[in-house]
Structures are given as structure tokens and as C-alpha cells.
């Protein structure tokens, strides 16, 4: 029986899956943040940029679809977070705009700013994109400073008719003052670098670059693992926000730990994901000839992020807690679209496997032969 509640959970699953895929696809950003460390020569740098240049649009499209899916399924989040945390999202978008033009423009005649400028743009997106997107995801657990008052729309005594307000003037930048948000953001940034290194090892057929990748992989992995473990421990021990049958939000000690215990299957998924990531890192570091680490790491990252996001929204949990007004916190119940819209969109979501199938086929077709200097010289290249 497909109930309204089932649809809310289903759409939270889809949004979480898109978020998880987005984090995996941020290997593009990770690799771009290491262009100068992995590629010591101009040719090496071009190889890395051309390698991520064959994939950047997947990341970009996933980000756009993630936003669109959130808009369609949980419009109150779209309204509250984007309209409230204005500066946080604007900076993220700004860096993605820089990225979008940088591939195509950088090595074209007449680009006015020079190739180096566009490579710097890619690096900015490579560092700032994952950091701030990670920070934005961390607010699902740490909360944000907003108030939602739907009656503002019709209350003549209210100051404005706007229903969602950020409760301070920083419009989202305040999130970066929370050390836990920074820890998670940095963890995502280093994770992107781990994934970026593993992707380059796999995709670029160049001994010089592969020989440098080992050290970068170790350094990024250590930073990521430390930050991730610290945040995971913090998450499991912290209070969370849950809602009762009548929609009242209450603070619950060890909420996220309880969620993992109640939804044991998510814990299993999380652990499998962690093992896969650690396996990919370990084997890639130990065996220099093994280039397939991106796949177990990618699958592992999708599983870990998926389990974390499901833990944030399922089991009567407020996925976007308000630190300004507890009852303004957003849940999958109070922020979702109507049953009709969720049902319609659920029917549309049947197309997703077909979309994934042709993406896979196209990816496989392009990646059958690994990228090398000859291809850049002879074929279409950035």
C-alpha cells in the first residue's frame, strides 16, 4: 500500500541517493584541487584537467537535479534553506559557475584571462565546493538559525509576509562558525581529494602522475579518516531532533545513535561503505599497479552518505533542525509536497534506472581506453 508517509520516505531516499551520488562525483572537485600537486608539468596538468573534464558535467547535473528534486519533494526546505542561508548557497553557486566555463575556455585561443586563471577557478571550486556543500549537509545534523511562520502570509500584524526567516544577519555564513560544521565540511573536502586521486589513478595512463598519487592519497586519506571518525563519534553522542505523532519537535538524547540502532540496516550499510572505502584506499596504496580503487571507494562513499542522510531524515527525525525555534524545524512530514505531487514524481522516478543505464554505457564507452598524452594531442581536448 503506497501511503503518503511511504512517499515521504521514498522521496527522502531519492534525495539522499542524489546527495550521495553528488558526494561521490565530487571526485572531479577533489582532483581539480590537486592539479598542481599531481601534475608537475604542463602536460601533466592538462591530463588531469582533461580527465575530470570528461566527467564534470555529471557532477554539475547531479547538483542541479539534487536541487530540483528537493524543490519538487520538499519545497519548504528549498524555500527556507536557499532563501535563508543566502550567502552560503550563493558562494557555492558562484564557484560552480566558475567551474562551468573553465574547462571549455582555458586552452582556447582568445580566452583573454589566460589558461592559468581558469585553472585557478577550477581549484577554487575544487576546495570551496566540497567544503561548503559538506558544511551545508552538516547543518542537517547541527541545525540552522531559521524561523518558519506560515501564517505570516496572512497575518496583517507580522512584519513581512515572508514565511521563512534567517534569524541573524549572516544569512548562512554563521554555519561556518560552528566547529562541527567545519569538521564535516573539511572531511568532505578531503574525501573529494581521496576520490579524486583514486579517479586519476584509474583514468589517466601516465606513470609520472600515478607515482605522485600515492603520497597524495595517503595524506588526504589520513586527514579524511581522522575528521570523519571525529565527526561520526560526535554525531552518535549528540542530541538530535525528533518529532512526535502530532508533529511536535522534541530534543532526544543520542537521537542519531538511536536511529542507527532502530534502523540497523542503515548501520550495516554504513559499515559496509566504510569498509569499502578503507579497502580501496589501503589496496591502492599498497599495490601501485591496482588502479580500480575508485569503484569500491565510490560505492562505499555512496553507501556511507546515503546511510547518514537517511539517518538524518527517517525514524521521525527533523532533518533540518532550527536552532532559533525548535518548532520551526523541518521534517519530511511538514516540509514535503502534497501526496498527489509526490505520487506523480514517484511515477517519473521510474525513469531513473534508464537514465543511470545510459550514463553507465556512455561512461564505459568513453573510458574504455585510458586517457594519455597521445589522445590529448590527437583528439578533442580542453
Amino acid at each position, binding site marked *: 500500500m503506497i501511503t503518503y508517509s511511504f512517499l515521504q520516505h521514498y522521496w527522502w531516499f531519492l534525495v539522499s541517493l542524489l546527495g550521495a551520488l553528488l558526494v561521490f562525483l565530487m571526485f572531479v572537485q577533489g582532483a581539480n584541487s590537486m592539479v598542481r600537486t599531481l601534475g608537475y608539468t604542463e602536460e601533466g596538468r592538462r591530463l588531469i584537467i582533461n580527465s575530470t573534464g570528461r566527467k564534470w558535467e555529471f557532477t*554539475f547535473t547531479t547538483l542541479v537535479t539534487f536541487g530540483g528534486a528537493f*524543490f519538487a519533494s520538499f519545497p519548504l526546505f528549498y524555500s527556507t534553506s*536557499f532563501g535563508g542561508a543566502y550567502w552560503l548557497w550563493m558562494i557555492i553557486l558562484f564557484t560552480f559557475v566558475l567551474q562551468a*566555463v573553465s574547462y*571549455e575556455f582555458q586552452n582556447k585561443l*582568445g580566452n583573454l584571462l589566460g589558461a592559468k586563471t581558469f585553472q585557478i577557478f577550477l581549484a577554487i571550486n575544487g576546495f570551496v565546493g566540497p567544503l561548503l556543500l559538506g558544511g551545508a549537509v552538516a547543518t542537517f545534523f547541527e541545525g540552522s538559525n531559521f524561523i518558519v511562520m506560515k501564517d505570516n502570509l496572512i497575518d496583517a500584524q507580522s512584519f513581512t509576509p515572508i*514565511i521563512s526567516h534567517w534569524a541573524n544577519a549572516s544569512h548562512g555564513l554563521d554555519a561556518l562558525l560552528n566547529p562541527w560544521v567545519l569538521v564535516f565540511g573539511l572531511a568532505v573536502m578531503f574525501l573529494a581529494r581521496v576520490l579524486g586521486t583514486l579517479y586519476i589513478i584509474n583514468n589517466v595512463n601516465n606513470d609520472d602522475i600515478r607515482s605522485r598519487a600515492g603520497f597524495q592519497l595517503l595524506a588526504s586519506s589520513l586527514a579524511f579518516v581522522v575528521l570523519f571518525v571525529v565527526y561520526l563519534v560526535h554525531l552518535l553522542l549528540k542530541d538530535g531532533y525528533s518529532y512526535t505523532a502530532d508533529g511536535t519537535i522534541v530534543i532526544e538524547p543520542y537521537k542519531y545513535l538511536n536511529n542507527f540502532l532502530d534502523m540497523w540496516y542503515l548501520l550495516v550499510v554504513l559499515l559496509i561503505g566504510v569498509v569499502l572505502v578503507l579497502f580501496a584506499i589501503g589496496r591502492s596504496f599498497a599495490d601501485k599497479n591496482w588502479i580500480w580503487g575508485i569503484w569500491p571507494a565510490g560505492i562505499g562513499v555512496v553507501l556511507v552518505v546515503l546511510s547518514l542522510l537517511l539517518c538524518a531524515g527517517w525514524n521521525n527525525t527533523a532533518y533540518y533542525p532550527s536552532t532559533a525555534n525548535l518548532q520551526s524545524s523541518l521534517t519530511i512530514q511538514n516540509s514535503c*509536497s502534497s501526496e498527489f505531487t509526490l505520487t506523480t514524481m514517484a511515477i517519473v522516478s521510474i525513469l531513473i534506472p534508464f537514465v543511470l543505464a545510459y550514463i553507465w554505457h*556512455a561512461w564505459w564507452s*568513453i573510458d574504455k581506453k585510458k586517457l594519455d598524452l597521445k589522445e590529448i594531442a590527437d583528439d578533442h581536448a580542453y
Partner: protein
Amino acid sequence: MTTDLFLNIDASSINWARAQFALTAIYHWLFVPLTLGLAVIMGICETCWYRTRDTFWRDTAQFWQKLFGVNFAMGIATGIILEFEFGTNWSNYSWFVGDIFGAPLAIEGIVAFFMESTFVAVMYFGWKKVSPGFHLASTWLTGLGATISAWWILVANAWMQYPVGCAFNPDTMRNEMVSFLDVALSPFAIDKFCHTVISAWIIGAVFVVAVSCWYLMKKRETKLATESIKIAAIVGLVASLGAAMTGHKSAQSVSQVQPMKLAAMEALYEGGPEQGLAIIPGVKVPYALSFMATNDFAGYVPGINDILNGYAKSDGTLEPSVDEKIQRGKQAITALADYRKAKKEGANPALLNEYLSTINSNMKYFGYGYVKDKNDVVPPVWVNFWAFRIMVGLGCLFILFFAVILAVTYKFPKALLQKYDITTLPDWHYWVGILLVPLAYIASESGWLVAEFGRQPWTIQDMLPTWVAVSDVEGFSVALTFFLFLFLFTLMLCVEINILLKQIKKGPEYNN
């Protein structure tokens, strides 16, 4: 009690939010039509290669694809901002109609964006890696993805002009979708899609003709130029005629659902039957406006004052005055406030039903409840008037232009044009072809000015005025991002134009 409802909202927030959205949309529309138009032409070129295996066609396709790629990147860059600005700058809007409006955007992402982004990669990097058939399919699918994307975003835009398939839910305080088909297949959306996409093909065709003209003037790449002109002239003429027909249909849709927009487009203050269409102020084609709006030379067309003061429609029903709509909108808002208060206090169902009845009977005018003065619902007349004329005038010019180009290229009628050779015309002929590029963009942007300025002050026609749709962000912050994007987009536009010019100057790379 609700006389001065919410009029204390910061005006600069609204104006900067509008300016930022307009800026992004205008920039975005500099790149999208060329993407849509070039996709058709490069698809035809590659199909010729697939059928003949003549490497000339592959090189020609690759040349246009190279220019396509430079432009495509900017379309993506400006597009992402546009989607997220619904949330960042129009947060009330996002909640009030997100249940309906979000769906097309999500479908656009799932169905169209992934198609575009996947196959554009195959198109560029797959020449030596996939079969010719797969590559050809990828090229067409890239264009198809862009076109499907246009479909869904235009469905969303058409819904803002003509909101259908939805109902207001007083418990959730928003409009909710009740018929997906009504939203997705709204006649307004179909007209808008056909007109917009076809007009984009004109830009693609004008661009290709212009580049080809430059080569002919420089006496180089003659074969590529003449063959490209042959294709572009057919695409351009079909598109120009199609744009005229779909434009007529769009104008009729506007006359039915947005009479104020039509009145502003015509600067028609006092309407009536047998209305003439103004060519310029003071010069009218008799009966033409009535015919354009109603398919009847004697049809009644309301003017701005008629709409403000109320008028009798051709079917005999009375359209209320704006003052009456304002009052009824306030009644809906007051009843809604009473309903929600009573529900919280556990009032009896009879009382709740009474409030609901008042809400439902006045909901059509809900948005008017936020209007202070009836003159506030009049869109900027001169912008609409001149933008419409520029669009239509240039559209007619393009029909003539492509007809002439086609005639000269194919030497038809033979007796008249036998002596003309497209490759040896005097230079000024080629300059005409080149100088039409900015005019094509001006025509296209003018169309959007009519569509969007004509809807003002509404974000959603009659439902939500701009000043109730915005986010709670200070004008200063939005102004800052406005100038940041203005700087960035302008800089990137300069870069793009310079790259395009260099690429054109460099010319195609012949593999054989």
C-alpha cells in the same frame, strides 16, 4: 484590518531580486537559443556525413560542434543560477507554489539535463571511441536533451503566466497540484514551447549564415560556407514562418488569459470592438488587433482602463474591476486567517466550512489582496509596446532575409537568379548577413521582455505579486550578488565572444 497588508516590506529587496533574476535570465537566453539552433544544424551536418561518409561533412559538423561547445558552457553556467534563484531570491514563491512548480524542474533535471550532459561528452570525446551510429545518436540526443529541457522550463514559465491544474490548500498554506497533465500539457505551455524553440532555431540559422558570410567575404572555406548556408537558410525560413504562426497563436492565448499584457503590448488604454493594430504610435492597421486577439475583425479587445474599471466580455459575462478584485482578495486573506485561527482553537466544522466557502469563492483574486492601488497591476507599458514591435518587426525581416538567401542559394526562380552566385556577391551582401546576428538576439530577448514585463507585477498571474514572493534578504546583499554576477557574466561573455571570433578566424580543421 488588512488594508495596509505587508506594505512595510523592503522595496529594495524586491527590486534587486527582480533585477538579479532578470539579469540572469537575459544572460542565460543569450546562450540557450544558439545551443538549440546550432544543435539542429550540426545534427543535419553529421547526418549528411553518416549517410555519405564524405569527410567534408564530418569536418563541417565538428566545426559547428566546436562553436557549440564554447556557447554551451555559458548556458550551463548561467542556468544553474537561474534554477537556484527561485529558492535564494523567491523563497515565499518556492513554498507557495513549489508543489506545482518544483515538479517540472525536477523532471527537467532527471530527463533532460542528464541526457544533455551524458551525450555531449560522447559527442566531443567519442569520435574515435564509439560507432558512427552511436555518435550520430549522441549528437542528436544532445540537442534533444536541450530541447526537452526547454520544454519543462517553459512548462514552468507558462504556468506562471497561466496557473492551471492546482488548488489552494488552506491547511498547508500553499497551492497544490491536482492535475499533472493540465500543468504539463497546458495549451499556453505548448504555444510558448513551440514559439520559443522555433525562434531559437532562427538564431542558430542566422549565426551559421553570418559565419558563412564572413568566410565567403574572405574567400575561404567556400564549400563549408555554401553548404552551411543551404542548410541554415532552410532551417531559418521554416523557423521564421513557424515563429510567425506560433506567435499569432501565443498572442491569442495572451488575449484570453492575460488581457492586461496584451493591452500593455498595444498601449491600448481604451479598448472596444474593431481594434486596429499599432505599427508605431499613431499608425494602425485597421481591425488587425481584433483579428490577432480573437480571430474576428470585429472582436472586442479590452484596454488598460477597461480592465482597471471592469468590462463586459464578448460572452456577456462581466469582468470585475481591479478595485473589486482587491476587495475580494482581502476577503480571501481575512477568511483564511480566520479559518486557521478557528481551526487551531478547535472551532466547529460549520464555522470552518463557512470560512472555506468564503476562501474558495474569492480565491481567484487572492493575489489582489496584497495590492494597495489598482494602478499597481498595470505593467510597464512602453517596454511592452516597443519590445513587441521590435520582436515582430525583426521576425518579419528574418522571413524576408531567409527567403532571399534561399532563393539566391538554390537559384530559384532560375530565370531571375541564374546570374547570381552566393560565393561572389558584393561584400555588403555578406555584411548584411553578419549584422543580422545582434538583431536576432535583440528580437529574441525582446520576446522575453514582452513575456515577463507583461506579467508584472505578478510572479504568478493574479495569484502572487512580486512583493509577496521574495526572500527575506536585505537589498544590500542581493545588490552585491547582482553586481558580482553582472561582472562575472559580462566578463565571461566577452571571453566567449572573443573565443568564438578566434575559432571562426581559425576555421575548421580538415582531417583529410
